């Protein structure tokens, strides 16, 4: 199969099928409703199920149930819809179930707008639901990468028995780019017989599996949280992903940016280079775990005078950048979040201002 032109939202649907996920529960919301449109047509062709819930709250618990029964299952939504699912996300993480969530972010807070935003960084990486849980958060910057991350998300969710979130923005969902899928379907799921409530007769182990999140005994709950923490610590060791751009030169400013925004920054870096200014760009591909070491190392390069987090939010990822840089360089922020994606020119101006001020 060669490259075909696809909207990001359609590629998400196709990628899930290629990953062997035949259960999709969702409720429509701009700017990602094309996923449901695509899968309403595609799922029956491959023997799968698309079920539209009566609300995002309901969808969250449909996912909980199907995942608990050992099925590969996923959903897509956009910011306000993810807020509604957040209670279920906490329960799913607590019950250690593999579910893939896709958030094609739009502007907030509240109903906000329907244009691209990155305002859900905190929600995705620091919780959104209650309690001590983490999502593994992947942040694609192109349609091809979105498809690859969706296909990667299912095995990752099963490896950790933890929800995985793909955090894109409206532009990633709406734009078309060439995308190439592997020819073979990846249908082999992991062995879930030790935990899934798939029916004792089908397992033949004679042992009951129990999916739950209630631990009234304080020691038991503490142990449960320690177990969850050990998984998150393992993610921090094994799953960090990022892309370096122009990081082997003597850059004066280091940009940290992800998703659509990072592409705009890449163009700004190219344009500034043509004008004789060296700027480095580090693009986190995992937001949790955040590439702390990589950002710290890049910031520590002797030529680097300052670091700037550029994001379509009022300054969320910048807190992780500060945590990474640990005060060895000043850390700044630039962003916008009404839905107008900053242009390369605006990014260049923000970077030039830093250089001019010697900050």
């Amino acid at each position, binding site marked *: 199969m060669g*490259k075909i*032109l696809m909207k990001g939202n359609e590629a998400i649907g196709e990628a899930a099928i290629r990953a062997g996920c035949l259960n999709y529960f969702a409720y429509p919301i*701009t*700017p990602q409703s094309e996923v449901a449109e695509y899968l309403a047509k595609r799922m029956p062709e491959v023997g799968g199920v698309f079920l539209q819930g009566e609300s995002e709250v309901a969808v969250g618990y449909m996912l909980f149930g199907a995942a608990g029964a050992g099925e590969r299952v996923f959903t897509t939504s956009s910011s306000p819809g993810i807020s509604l699912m957040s209670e279920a996300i906490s329960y799913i993480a607590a019950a250690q179930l593999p579910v893939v969530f896709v958030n094609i972010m739009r502007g907030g807070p509240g109903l906000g*707008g*329907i*244009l691209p935003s990155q305002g859900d960084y905190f929600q995705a990486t620091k919780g959104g639901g209650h309690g001590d849980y983490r999502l593994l958060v992947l942040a694609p910057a192109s349609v091809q990468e979105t498809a690859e991350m969706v296909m990667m998300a299912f095995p990752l969710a099963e490896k950790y028995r933890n929800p995985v979130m793909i955090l894109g923005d*409206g*532009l990633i969902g*709406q*734009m*078309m*780019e*060439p995308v190439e899928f592997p020819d073979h379907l990846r249908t082999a799921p992991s062995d879930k017989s030790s935990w899934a409530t798939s029916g004792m007769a089908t397992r033949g182990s004679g042992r009951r599996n129990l999916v739950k999140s209630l631990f009234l005994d304080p020691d038991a709950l503490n142990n449960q949280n320690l177990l969850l923490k050990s998984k998150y610590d393992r993610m921090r060791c094994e799953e960090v992903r990022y892309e370096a751009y122009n990081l082997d030169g003597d850059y004066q400013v280091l940009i940290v940016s992800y998703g*659509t925004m990072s*592409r*705009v920054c*890449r*163009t*700004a870096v*190219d344009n500034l280079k043509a004008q004789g200014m060296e700027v480095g760009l580090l693009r986190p591909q995992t937001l949790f775990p955040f590439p702390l070491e990589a950002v710290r190392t890049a910031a520590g390069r002797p030529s680097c005078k300052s670091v700037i987090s550029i994001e379509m939010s009022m300054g969320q990822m910048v807190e992780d950048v500060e945590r990474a840089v640990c005060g060895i360089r000043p850390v700044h922020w630039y962003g916008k979040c009404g*839905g107008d*994606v*900053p*242009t*390369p*020119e605006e990014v260049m101006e923000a970077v030039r201002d830093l250089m001019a001020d010697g900050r």
Partner: protein
Amino acid sequence: MQSEVKFAGFGGQGILLSAKILAHAALDEGHEVVWIPSYGPEMRGGTAYCTVVIGDRPIGSPIIKNPMHLIAMNRPSLEKFAPTVRPGGIILINANLIPIGSGRDDVTDLVVPVNDLAATAGNLRAANLVALAAFVARSGIVAFETLRHCVAEEFAGKPGALAVNLVALEKGREAAEG
């Protein structure tokens, strides 16, 4: 090198489709390509626009403030976007709905009565392809044969529409070359 084409008009003029066909043609010729629609509140008001970015290396910013070329299917689109086109670009003007020019001397106005030509071809709805064909013929942004091939693929399941659209392509090309 990177080139950008902005398609603009009102809803129903086939803006998104003609842009997609150009993107498809560029992909077939081995270029990098991004198709970016407007999906914001303005489209609820009836205007539609879409940008196709074609390059020979991975495309960075999908946000294009100053496109190289513009295909304006109605007057508000021309008035809004003509000033943003980069010097040396082509502005296709749908003469049937736009009685004015771009007012610029550093771009090429390609004035084509696309609605009339589409009607001659057999269906007014083919106006988007008349415009695309005229633009491709004048700009050479992709080979005309590639365009024809992509239109044939796009309408493979609709022989009636395909026949009309192939005539529409020729009408557009003649207008650009005439």
